[in-house]
C-alpha cells in the first residue's frame, strides 16, 4: 500500500509539471494581458509595469523563473488582487468552497443513496417512477435554474432563508442544496443501476435463501458492492465541488474559489489562474487515489499494486 501511494505521488509530481507547462504557455499565447483595461496605458507606464512583474523578459526565462517559484510552493502575488499572494487567496477561498462543497456532497449522498436504493428495491413501483423522474430533471436542469427557483421559493415566497451572503448556517443551506442537487440525481441513478445489478446476483439469492431479513440483505450484502460505481463517481465530483462553483458562488455571493478560478483566467491573472489549476490538479489526483484505496476496502477482489 505504501508503495502504491509513493508511486502515485511520483506520478502526481510529473502530472503537475506537465499541467504547469501547458497552462503557462497556453495562458501567455491568448491575446491580452493582465494590464489590459478600458483605458490604454501610456507605453512608458506599461513598460514600467511589465518590468516590475518581469513580463518583459523572454518567455522561456519567465517560464524557468515561475517554475522555480512554484517548486518552492511560492505561487507569487495575484495580478488582479494585488494586496494578496495566491497562497493568501487560496487559503481564504478554499475552506469556504470546501465547507459548502462538503455540505452539498453530504446532501447529494444522503438523498441520492436513499432514492437510489429505494427505487432499486421497489423497482417498477410508483416510488421508483417518481424518484427517477426527479433525478432526470435534476440532471437536466442547470445549476442556475435550480438556484433561481430556490430563491423565488425560499427567499421571496416563503421567506425563511437570506438571499445571499456567507457567514451563518442559514446562508449555507440554499447554495448547498442547489450545488448538491445535480449530484444527488447522479448518485441516485448510479446507485439504482448498480443495486439492480447486484440484487440479481447469486450471493444475494444465497443470502435470501438463508432466510436473512430484507434489510440485512440490502444493507449487509448488496450495498457495499453497489457502492463501487458511486465511489468512483465521487472522486472527480468531490474535486470539482471542493474547488467551488462559479455559478452558485456568484448567485449567492459566496467568497469561495470558484469565482477566482474563472475570473483569474478571464482577466489574465496569470499567477492566480496557475494557482487554481495546480490546486485542482492536486485535489483531483488525491481524490482519485483515495477512491482507489477505498476500492480495496469495499471489494475484496481488488488488490492494490
Amino acid at each position, binding site marked *: 500500500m505504501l508503495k502504491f501511494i509513493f508511486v502515485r505521488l511520483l506520478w502526481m509530481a510529473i502530472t503537475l509539471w506537465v499541467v504547469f507547462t501547458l497552462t503557462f504557455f497556453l495562458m501567455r499565447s491568448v491575446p491580452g494581458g493582465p494590464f489590459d483595461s478600458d483605458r*490604454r496605458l501610456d507605453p512608458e507606464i506599461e513598460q514600467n509595469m511589465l518590468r516590475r512583474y518581469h513580463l518583459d523578459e523572454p518567455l522561456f526565462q519567465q517560464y524557468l523563473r515561475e517554475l522555480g517559484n512554484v517548486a518552492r510552493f511560492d505561487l507569487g502575488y495575484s495580478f488582479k488582487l494585488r494586496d494578496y499572494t495566491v497562497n493568501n487567496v487560496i487559503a481564504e477561498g478554499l475552506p469556504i468552497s470546501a465547507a459548502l462543497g462538503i455540505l452539498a456532497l453530504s446532501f447529494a449522498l444522503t438523498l441520492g*443513496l436513499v432514492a437510489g436504493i429505494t427505487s432499486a428495491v421497489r423497482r417498477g413501483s410508483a416510488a421508483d417512477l417518481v424518484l427517477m423522474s426527479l433525478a432526470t430533471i435534476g440532471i437536466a436542469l442547470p445549476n442556475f435554474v435550480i438556484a433561481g427557483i430556490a430563491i423565488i421559493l425560499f427567499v421571496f415566497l416563503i421567506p425563511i432563508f437570506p438571499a445571499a451572503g456567507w*457567514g451563518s448556517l442559514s446562508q449555507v443551506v440554499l447554495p448547498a442544496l442547489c450545488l448538491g442537487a445535480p449530484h444527488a440525481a447522479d448518485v441516485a441513478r448510479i446507485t439504482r443501476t448498480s443495486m439492480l445489478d447486484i440484487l440479481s446476483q447469486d450471493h444475494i439469492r444465497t443470502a435470501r435463501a438463508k432466510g436473512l431479513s430484507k434489510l440485512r440483505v440490502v444493507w449487509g450484502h448488496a450495498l457495499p458492492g453497489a457502492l463501487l460505481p458511486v465511489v468512483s463517481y465521487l472522486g472527480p465530483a468531490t474535486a470539482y465541488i471542493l474547488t467551488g462553483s462559479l455559478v452558485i458562488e456568484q448567485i449567492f*455571493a459566496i467568497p469561495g474559489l470558484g469565482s477566482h478560478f474563472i475570473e483569474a483566467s478571464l482577466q489574465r491573472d496569470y499567477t492566480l489562474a496557475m494557482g487554481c489549476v495546480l490546486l485542482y490538479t492536486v485535489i483531483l489526483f488525491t481524490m482519485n487515489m483515495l477512491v482507489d484505496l477505498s476500492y480495496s476496502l469495499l471489494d475484496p477482489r481488488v488488490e492494490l499494486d
Partner: protein
Amino acid sequence: MSMRAWLPLLMVVLGLSDVAWAVLRVQLPPADFTFINETEVKSLDWAVVTGIPEHRIVGNIFEGLTRLDAATLEPLPGVAERWEISDDKKTYTFHLRKNAKWSNGKPVTAHDFIYSLQRFLDPQTGAEYAYQAWYLVNARRYSLGEKGLEPGDSVEIELNERPTGARPFARGELLHGKLVRVEGAEQDRVFVVKIDGRERKFRTGEKGDEAAGMEPAKQVLLDFREVGARAIDDYTLEMRLENPTPFWLELLNYHALLPVNQECIETYGSPEWTYAENIVTNGPYRIAFRRIRDRIRLVKNERYWDKQRVKLNVIDALAINTQVTMFNLFTTGKVDWITDLPAIVLRGLLKSGAARDELDPKPYLGTYYFLLNTRRKPLDDVRVRRALALALDREEITRTATGAGEVPAYSLVPLGISGYMPEQFSTENVREAQRLLAEAGYPDGIGFPKLEILYNTQQAHQTIAQLVRKQWEKNLGITASTRNEEWGSYQTSIRQFEFDVARRAWIADYIDPNSHLDIMVTDGENNNTGWSNAEYDRLIAAARAETDENKRVELFHQAERILMDEMPLIPIYYYVDKNMVKSDVRGFYRNPLDQHPLSAIWIDEAAAPTGGWGRRTASPQSIEVGGPAEPRPLPPDVRE
C-alpha cells in the same frame, strides 16, 4: 456486521458531522450602512489602482489636499485648509491644517505629500495612473525613468543598498549629481554622472563592472527636486504646474494624488502595508478588516480632523458583481445602496414607478460611442463616416436597449459640464445620410463592403450592436455583421486596429471638456481610430495653455466642432447613473461624476424604511470591530 457493511453508514455520518464544521465563522454584528462595491478591490494602495470600486474605498480612507462637496463636487478644503493660486495660474501654495492626523496619531505634513508624490511617480511603483500627476512640472520626465534623461540634467541615483538606519523597505541611498553623458546601447546603458566634481559611472542592476570603474545602481532618475512640488515647511506645500489646469484642485482629491504614510510603507513594504493591521490612513474612515471577495468593513476614524461631520460608524462594502444578487439583497433589506441592477428589472421599476424614492437615474459625465477605424476603406472617407452617424435612430437604442433614461448623444463631450455646451452634430437625417453615401460612391449602399461591429461579450453591448446593424441595413442598404470577443481579445483587437467599428465608452475623471477631448489627439493611447488632425491637436494644446476661461472654452468648442465634422467616432448615448438607494438614506447626491463620499451619508431614523422587511435586523447601535479603543480624546477641531 463486517466493517465493509458499516462503511456506507460511516460515510453518511461523516458527511453530516461536517455540517457543524462547515459553519466556519461567527456571524458579524450588522453594519450601519451596507453597499455593493461590485468587484473585489485590486488594492488599497491608491498608487496602483484605477477602478471605481477601488476609488469608493480608497477615497474614504485617505484624504487629499482637497475634498469634493458631495452634492456639487466643488473642491473644499481637505488636509489643506486654504491655498493661494498665482496670477499665471501655474503655482499653487497650500497651507495645511495643523490638526490633520494620521490614524497612528502623528500629524499629516507637507513632507508626507512630497513622499507620496515621489512614490507615485517612481517607475518602480508601476502606477497605471501616473499621468494624473503629469500636470506638475517635470513629473512626466521623472516617471519615465532613465528614458526621460538627457545630458545636463540633474539626476538622482538610487543605490541598491539602503542608508544605514533606514527602515527595511525604504528607498536605496540617493546620490545627486549632473548627468554628463550616457554610454552604451539601449539595454545596457551606462550613466556618467558628475558628483561633487568627480565623474562616476553607474549601471543599473545588481552588479557593477569594477574593472571598467562602473558602480551598480537600482535606478537613475531625474532629480526629484526638479519636479514641481516642494515642502516649504512642515505645513506649507508648493506645486508648480506645466500649464494652467483649472481642474487641478479637483484632481487633488482624485485617488492618484492622496497622501500615504511613509513610516508605514517603509516598515512593512508593499503590499503588506495595506493589511488591515498595518495600514495607516488619514481619511474619515479606516479599515476594520477585509475578506477577499466578501467584504471590506470600514469604521469611523476617531482621529479624523473633521469627525463631527462623519455620521455613520460602521460601513460594509460588499464585493458582489452579479446584478440579480445585488437586487435580491436590496429588496430583502440587507443592503442600502446598489450601484447597478438588471436591465429588465430597471425598466420594469421605472415604468411602474414602484421605486420612485429609491431609483432616480440622472445623467453623469460618460459617453457611449462607436469607434470607426479610419485606416480602413471605406471608413477613411469622411462622407461615409458622417452617413453612418446620421443614419442611426438613437431614440430606439436608448428606449429598447438601455432603458434607464439614457440620453441620445450627438457629441463626445457629455452634457452637464457647467459653462460648456458640447458641439453637437445635426440630429439623425436618413435622407442626408443616403445622399452622403451616394456621393462617396455607394448609392443605396451598392458596392459598399460589409462592415463588422466589434464589441466585448456582454448582453447590453450585443443588443446595441444588433440594433445599429439593423438600422444601417435598413436606412443605408449596406450589410453589417457583429462580432463579440471576450474582454482581453477585444482590447487587443482594438489596439491592433483589427476592426471596422467597435463599441467604446469614456467616463470623465474630472468635470472639464478636456477629459473627453484629450483622448482624440493624434496617436493618443485611447484614440484607437487612427484619426489625426493637426488643427485639432493644436487647439487642444492651446486650450491647455490658456489662462482665460472664456478663450479656453472657445478653443474646446472649435476642437470639438472639428471632431464632429470629421466623425472618427459615432456618439450613441450619454450615461445615467443606476444607483438604487434606500429611501431613508440622506446625503446621497446624484452628481456628474457619480461619486458619493461616504462621509456625507447618514440615515434618517425618522423616515420609514422602504422595501422588503425593513432595513436592519439588529439595532443600529454602533459596534466597534477590530482595532484598539481610542487612547485619548482629541482636541476639538478648528474649522476655518
